[in-house]
C-alpha cells in the first residue's frame, strides 16, 4: 500500500510533464515544418535565387541544359485560376446547401444530410483525381469540343466538389450559432422565412460564412494529387477555362521524385513549399481571426 502510494507520487509529475510536452507539440510541429522545409531550400534561396525573377517570370525551365530558369508566375496563375473557379462554384452551392440544411430541413433530414456530407468529405483526393481523369475528361471533351478534357474547368469542378463539404459544415455551424431569438423575433414581425434568412440570418452569420469560404480557399490552394491528375500538365498562364495549367502543389508532386537531393531544382521546389506554407498560413490565420470576431461580440 505504502509502496503503491510512493509510486503514485513519483509517476504523477512524470505524467503531467508528458501531458504538458504533448500540449505544446502542435507549436513545435508548426515551427518544425517551417524550419525543415526552409532548411532544405535555404542554400539556394540566399545565394542564387533572383526573387524578382522567381515571382514575376513565367519561364519555368528547371531541366533546360543551358539556361535553367525558375519563374513561378505561371504556376501561381495555375493555382489561382483553379482555386477561383472552384470557389465560384463551391461557395454559392456550399452556402446554399448550408442554408437549406440548417433552415428548411426537419431535424431528421438535417441529420441525414450531415452524415452524407461527412461521407463526401472522406473521399480521398486521389479518387477525386481519378474521377476527373476518367469521368469528367470525356464529358468535357464532348460538351465543349475541347481538344483535351484535363484543364482549368475539370480541376475547378473537382476542387469545388472537394471543398463543398467543408464549406457546408462550417457554414452550418455559423448559422446554428445565430440565437433562435433572432429567428423568432423576425418571424413574429411577419417576415417570411426567406426574408428572415436574407435580412436577419445572413447579416448575423456573415463572419462565420466568410470563414467557411476562406477555409475552402485554403483547401483549394493546398490540394495536390487531385489537381495534378485533373488539370493537365502545361506550365502557362491560362487564357480560357479550357486551357490546361499546372499548379504550385502539382509541380512539387510531379518533379520532386526526379530531382537529385540538394540540387538547385530540388531546392527551388522547397522554396515553392515555403511559399505555399506562407499563403495557407495567412489564409488560415485570417479565417481564424474572423471566427474569433464573432465569438468576441
Amino acid at each position, binding site marked *: 500500500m505504502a509502496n503503491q502510494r510512493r509510486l503514485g507520487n513519483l509517476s504523477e509529475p512524470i505524467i503531467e510533464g508528458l501531458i504538458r510536452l504533448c500540449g505544446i507539440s*502542435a507549436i513545435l510541429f508548426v515551427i518544425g515544418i517551417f524550419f525543415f522545409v526552409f532548411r532544405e531550400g535555404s542554400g539556394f534561396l540566399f545565394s542564387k535565387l533572383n526573387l524578382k525573377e522567381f515571382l514575376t517570370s513565367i519561364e519555368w525551365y528547371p531541366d533546360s541544359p543551358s539556361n535553367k530558369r525558375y519563374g513561378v508566375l505561371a504556376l501561381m496563375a495555375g493555382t489561382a485560376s483553379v482555386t477561383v473557379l472552384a470557389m465560384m462554384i463551391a461557395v454559392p452551392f456550399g452556402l446554399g446547401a448550408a442554408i437549406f440544411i440548417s433552415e428548411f430541413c426537419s431535424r431528421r433530414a438535417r441529420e441525414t444530410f450531415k452524415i452524407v456530407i461527412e461521407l463526401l468529405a472522406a*473521399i480521398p483526393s486521389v479518387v477525386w483525381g481519378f474521377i476527373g481523369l476518367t469521368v469528367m475528361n470525356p464529358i468535357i471533351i464532348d460538351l465543349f469540343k475541347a481538344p483535351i478534357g484535363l484543364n482549368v474547368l475539370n480541376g475547378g469542378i473537382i476542387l469545388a466538389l472537394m471543398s463543398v463539404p467543408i464549406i457546408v459544415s462550417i457554414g452550418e455551424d455559423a448559422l446554428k450559432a445565430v440565437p433562435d431569438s433572432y429567428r423568432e423575433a423576425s418571424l413574429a414581425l411577419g417576415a417570411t422565412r426567406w426574408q428572415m434568412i436574407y435580412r436577419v440570418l445572413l447579416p448575423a452569420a456573415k463572419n462565420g460564412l466568410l470563414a467557411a469560404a476562406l477555409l475552402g480557399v485554403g483547401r483549394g490552394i493546398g490540394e495536390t494529387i487531385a489537381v495534378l491528375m485533373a488539370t493537365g500538365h502545361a506550365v502557362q498562364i491560362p487564357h480560357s477555362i479550357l486551357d490546361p495549367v499546372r499548379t504550385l502543389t502539382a509541380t512539387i508532386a510531379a518533379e520532386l521524385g526526379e530531382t537529385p537531393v540538394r540540387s538547385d531544382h530540388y531546392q527551388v521546389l522547397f522554396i515553392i513549399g515555403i511559399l505555399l506554407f506562407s499563403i495557407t498560413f495567412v489564409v488560415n490565420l485570417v479565417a481564424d481571426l474572423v471566427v474569433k470576431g464573432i465569438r468576441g461580440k
Partner: protein
Amino acid sequence: MFIETPLVQKKKRTEAAAKIVFMLMTILMILPLLLILAYLLYKAFPILSLDFFITNPKNGMRAGGIWAPFLGTMYLVVISLLISAPIGVLAAVYLNEYAGDNWFTRIINLAVVNLAGVPSIVHALFGLGAFVLFAGMGRSILAASLTLAIMTLPVIIASTKESLAAVPRAFREACWNVGATRWQTIRHIVLPNSISGILTGVILQVSRTAGETAPVMFTGVVFFKKISEGDIFAYNLFDQCMALSMHLFTISTQVPDVPKALPYGTAVVLLGTVLLVNALSITLRVYLRARKKW
C-alpha cells in the same frame, strides 16, 4: 377566414421559390456524386474478387491484384495512428484540463488550427527533410507513418478536446472534493467518461490516413515492391512499401496500357475502405449519443 392579399401571395411565392432553389443546390451537390460512385462500382465489378485482394500486381502492374499496396496502406494507417493518437489525446487533455485562459494557450490553439491547414504536399516536404534525410530514416514505412501522424494530429486534438469538454464540470469537482489529484481525476473520471467519443474521432482518422497520397509519395511509398502474398508480416518498419492511394495514382497516370478494370477496382477498394471506416465511426457516434446519461 383570412383572405390572402396579393402581397401575402407574393411573399408565399418567394418563400416557396427560395426553398426550392436551396433544395436544388443541395441535391445538385449530392446527386452527381452518387451517380459517379455507382458508375465506379459498375466499372470495377468484373474484377472484384478475393483473388484481387490477395495477389501482387504483376506484369508491370498491368495484371494481378492489390495485395502489396493494400497491406502497405494498413501498415501506414496503424503505425501512424499508434504515434498520433497518444500525442493527440494527451495534447487535448492538456488544452482542456490544464491550460489556463491566457496568451500561451491561444498560441497553442492557433498552432493547431494552422497545422490543420498546412497543405499535404508541404507535409511531404517536411517529412522528406526531417525524417528521411535529417533523422536518417531513409524512405521507409516509419518515415511515411511519422509524416502522416503529424498531419492527422490536429484533427485528433480537435475531436478529443470536444469529447473532453462534454464531460460535465460537476464530475471533476466531485472528484477533487474527495481529495483526488488532477491526474487521478483525469485518469479515473474524465477519460473513462469520454473514451468513446475520443475513439470515434480516432477511427475517423483511419479513413483520412488511408486516402492520403502526397505526404507518403516521397517519404516511404514506392511505385512497386514485391512482397510474399498472404503474409501479413511481409513489411518491416524500415522497408519501403506500396500504398493503395499511390497505386491508383500510378496505374491511372504513369503506366500505359493498363486494363480498364484495374484502376476502377483499386479506386473502389480504396473508397470502400474509407467509407466503411467512416460509416463505422458515424454509427458508433449515433449509438453513443443515444445512450448518453447526462
